């Protein structure tokens, strides 16, 4: 395959994935509002279109028409750059996620994964660690106290949970002996082959850290409105704020996709009698499950206090993840 053709195919894949992710983000906001409303015995947005399904479009249009304010104290260049820098790592996660096996479209054989690298897991963590920059930049460049504090808090929170985040996967790596995500999916055959059954503690630590990494409730201290107004994006308005917002939701979907791939068998069908459902759809169903869980948590759990958050990360999750790693290694050795 020559480079030009490959580049073209990759571009098509990238645009498709970005399109699906952005639509997912839009409908995630809709689903979130409807489901949280259900939890609280309200109706939620139901006026724009049938069942309010056009609400995300209405929101987007509204946001575009809002006034774009750039505070005088803002640090021009970096202020503009921060939303872009938050947006890109969120999308980069999707480059290493397998959505299916090899398929043939119009006579061209192509992999349903953008970049089939053999260090997929590490790449995911590297990209996650880069997402701190957008938040720190936004907090610093806004020239507002709330932004700075929010940015600081969020970055300290993110780096604190990153350690346990990375550790929680070592258990799976010990069993899988690979860093390639596609291979991880291939290893998880059938319902009981999913790594979540072999690594339940690892999964729980992973998911809790993932929620903290994406700054979602109950770990949304960066934007604790009662004390920090809106945290690092206090000074952002109109679509600049919208870009942060999309970035946050894209990161959530990315985390759901990674969790699905590593712990829930990715695009594989868990039961043989359901094999007729195409892999991509299986993948979407599993990710949607995670998205629902995110919303469920938001509707149920109160926000942490900052010291509780730090203690929980360093004194609970980190030791548990480390213990899980060594325990897995020990059992693996003993069983052999």
């Amino acid at each position, binding site marked *: 395959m020559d480079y030009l053709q490959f580049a073209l195919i990759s571009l098509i894949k990238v645009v498709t994935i970005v399109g699906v992710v952005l639509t997912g983000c839009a409908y995630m906001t809709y689903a979130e509002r409807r489901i949280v409303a259900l939890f609280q015995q309200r109706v939620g947005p139901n006026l724009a279109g049938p069942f309010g399904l056009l609400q995300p479009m209405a929101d987007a249009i509204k946001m575009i028409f809002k006034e774009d304010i750039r505070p005088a104290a803002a640090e021009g260049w970096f202020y503009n750059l921060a939303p872009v820098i938050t947006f890109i790592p969120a999308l980069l996660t999707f480059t290493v996620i397998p959505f299916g096996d090899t398929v043939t479209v119009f006579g061209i054989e192509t992999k349903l994964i953008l970049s089939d690298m*053999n260090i997929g897991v590490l790449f995911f963590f590297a990209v996650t660690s880069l997402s*701190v920059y957008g938040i720190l930049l936004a907090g610093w460049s806004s020239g507002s106290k709330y932004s700075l504090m929010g940015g*600081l808090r969020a970055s300290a929170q993110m780096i604190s949970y990153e350690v346990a985040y990375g550790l929680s996967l070592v258990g799976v790596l010990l069993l899988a002996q690979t860093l390639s995500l596609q291979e991880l999916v291939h290893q998880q055959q059938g319902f009981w082959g999913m790594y979540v059954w072999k690594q339940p503690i690892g999964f729980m630590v992973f998911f809790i850290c993932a929620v903290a990494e994406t700054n979602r409730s109950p770990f949304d201290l960066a934007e604790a409105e009662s004390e920090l107004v809106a945290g690092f994006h206090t000074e952002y308005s109109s679509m600049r704020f919208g870009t942060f917002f999309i970035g946050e939701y894209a990161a959530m979907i990315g985390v759901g996709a990674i969790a699905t791939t590593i712990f829930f068998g990715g695009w594989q069908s868990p039961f043989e009698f359901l094999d007729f459902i195409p892999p991509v759809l299986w993948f979407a169903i599993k990710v949607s499950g995670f998205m629902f869980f995110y919303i469920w948590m938001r509707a149920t759990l109160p926000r942490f206090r900052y010291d509780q958050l730090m203690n929980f990360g360093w004194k609970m999750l980190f030791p548990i993840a480390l213990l899980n790693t060594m325990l897995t290694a020990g059992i693996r050795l003993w069983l052999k």
Partner: protein
Amino acid sequence: MDITLNPADLTHTIAFYTLALTSIVAALIVVTAKRIFRAAVALAVVLICGAGFYILLNYDFIAGVQLLVYVGGIVILIVFAVMLTSSLESIEEPPSLGRKALGLFSSLAFLATAVIAFSETKFPLSSISAEQPKDVAKAVGRKLLDYGAGGYVLPFEVISLLLLASVIGAIVVARNPKRKNEGSAT
């Protein structure tokens, strides 16, 4: 020295020079920027370019580690450290003439040392590129942990001691009980 840089491979050459140019420009920004946060961001760019070089050398695992530890960790630490001592807004004061002279002397000395060291050393790059490992993560693991196949087990264990020493050092340096309550509002 350009053995790994296959001249026939145009993409490789273009990528190399793009990365090299970017990292040089960013490095210049690091040392010339008046505002420390700008310097930190430029430093992140330099380090990302470093990861790019590792990728060009086929060591993707090391590139990932570079991003994870250096870009996602060390630079953040530097930013926090700067914020701790003064604030991100701080603009460096121009140094005195004596310090300038001292700085010039030490940087020239470092340059001379580096140039001598680079020109004196023979880099056995050809042998590395000849036997490219397929899975770099596994190759790195073998080198570090397998005592049979020429692994570096003792240095690996010493790393943990080094990290322990830095933990203790960090605590001793950073924890000054007298200034405990400073800025507790954050």
